[in-house]
């Protein structure tokens, strides 16, 4: 395997329960990988183990050829891994512009240069670009907490892209988004992928969204990967149908 991200034998045990059971997969640069599975199949725990929120019981994670297992989230972010969370996570009292600045400022300069405000000058262009890309420019000076849900969702995703990450994990990006906004979101993600070569791993329950966007889909059930393939292959897989309908 020679992917941007390589996960091998990742396991997380909670007492007697194997929430994630020896999961291995790789993500190639420029790919959009979807992870689906019934509730409780270990998708979010898998994300949390890869992204430093939880310490894996066993297994390894490599990113761009470097061992990153168990590193703290802030360090992973500075290495080029972005993420969003299942629930909206923004800084509600800060303005939209400040949210984006906060999302990018730690990726340039030193701690000391940040005290003297140096990164902001370099970030201004990236902020404007991101505001325009997600159509939030007219809201730049508005406190993020007073945006509509859909706009907050776009801001949330924009923040994950502020630092120009090489790989972004999206936990249910379509969750709670209305159909009109969903089309917009899909277009934005596809543009980020095509125009900037952004690589995604996303957890999603909205099958139409997953099947339309992803190059490859991983199916989890009871902590294990039970199927892997293109959306077409996965949709026809008997084990997948069993996992969703049987049991």
């Amino acid at each position: 395997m020679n992917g941007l991200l390589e996960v091998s034998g990742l396991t997380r045990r909670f007492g007697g329960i194997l929430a994630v059971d020896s999961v291995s997969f790789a993500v190639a640069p420029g790919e959009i990988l979807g992870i689906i599975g019934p509730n409780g199949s270990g998708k979010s725990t898998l994300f949390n183990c890869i992204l430093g929120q939880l310490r894996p019981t066993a297994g390894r994670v490599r990113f761009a050829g470097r061992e990153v297992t168990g590193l703290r989230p802030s360090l992973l972010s500075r290495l080029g891994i972005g993420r969003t969370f299942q629930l909206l996570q923004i800084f509600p009292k800060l303005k939209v512009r400040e949210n984006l600045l906060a999302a990018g400022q730690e990726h340039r300069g030193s701690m000391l240069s940040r005290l003297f405000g140096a990164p902001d000058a370099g970030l201004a262009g990236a902020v404007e670009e991101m505001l325009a890309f997600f159509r939030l420019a007219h809201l730049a000076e508005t406190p993020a907490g007073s945006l509509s849900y859909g706009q907050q969702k776009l801001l949330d995703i924009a923040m994950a892209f502020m630092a120009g990450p090489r790989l972004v994990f999206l936990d249910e990006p379509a969750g709670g988004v209305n159909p009109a906004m969903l089309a917009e979101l899909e277009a934005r993600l596809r543009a980020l992928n095509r125009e900037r070569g952004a690589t995604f791993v996303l957890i999603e329950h909205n099958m139409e969204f997953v099947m339309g966007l992803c190059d490859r889909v991983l199916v989890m059930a009871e902590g294990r990967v039970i199927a892997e393939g293109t959306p077409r292959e996965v949709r026809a897989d008997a084990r997948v149908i069993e996992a969703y309908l049987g049991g």
Partner: protein
Amino acid sequence: MTGRRLAAVAAGLLVAALLLLLPLTLRPYGLYLMSLWAVLTIAAMGLNLTLGYAGQVSLAQGAFVGIGAYAAALLTTAGWPLGAGLLLGVGLGLLVGWLLGYPALRVQHHYLAFVTLGANTLVFLVLRNEDWLTGGVYGIAAIPRPTVLGYPTDHPLAFYYFCLGVLLLVGLGLGLLLRSPWGRAFEALRENPVRAESLGIDTRRYTLLAFAIGSAVGSLAGAIYAPLVQYIDPSPFALGLSLALLLMVVVGGAGRFFGPGLGAAIAVLLPEWLRFSEGLYLILYAVLVILVLVFLPSGLVGLADRLSARARGEGR
């Protein structure tokens, strides 16, 4: 927007005139109160950084004022200039504040309040019991006032202007800090620590920094409190001062730049204005605090904002 800016400039000029000219008409007791206000404002601004901006509860700010006061008192009574006492106080504040930040990496909110409350008591006991260093309950007397740029500050008016100058410098420094990416990282830490961490903001480091800087500013206030009162003993640095500083921050407006100044003004002036009520003073003060907490969760500065918004017809 311009109307609002005009109002802000007018208010600023009024306050500046008050701070610069009113003292010329005051007797020593009035000057003492205004100097005390400046000292308490500095200490509360430090706490406002830790609590209001970075969202880390601290009930130990009074202990840091004590650390600064003792550092200044010990050095100046031994013949050193106050500048040396300030440096030692601020250095100790940074160090002890950094250490106090470690529990905040594990516990939050009211648990953190209890941990910092314990730290305050610990510092108080050291000040009271280690009498070989601190003079114990007898304290340290005859603390000299400094000579600033060749001018002695023995006269209360001169010392007040010294305090005001220090307050301006601290205010300027903190203002610049809060506008820098550090300030934004502190606010991100308060608003959503998990998200901040996922965006590369090293929340551990910024938590420790918030405690260290906020505490050091408290110690700086202590280092000018010592020459203000010229005699210190451990009693003012018990838990009561930490609670009073917390109230100043909350009543003025936590996370608002001018909140501490307003909160400190109320804490210093209200007892004087309510003197006619004698024993009722504490009760009246308590009622005021409760009213502010219930009706003005963003403090008195928040109230000013709301009123100016309503005046512009944007009120809800």
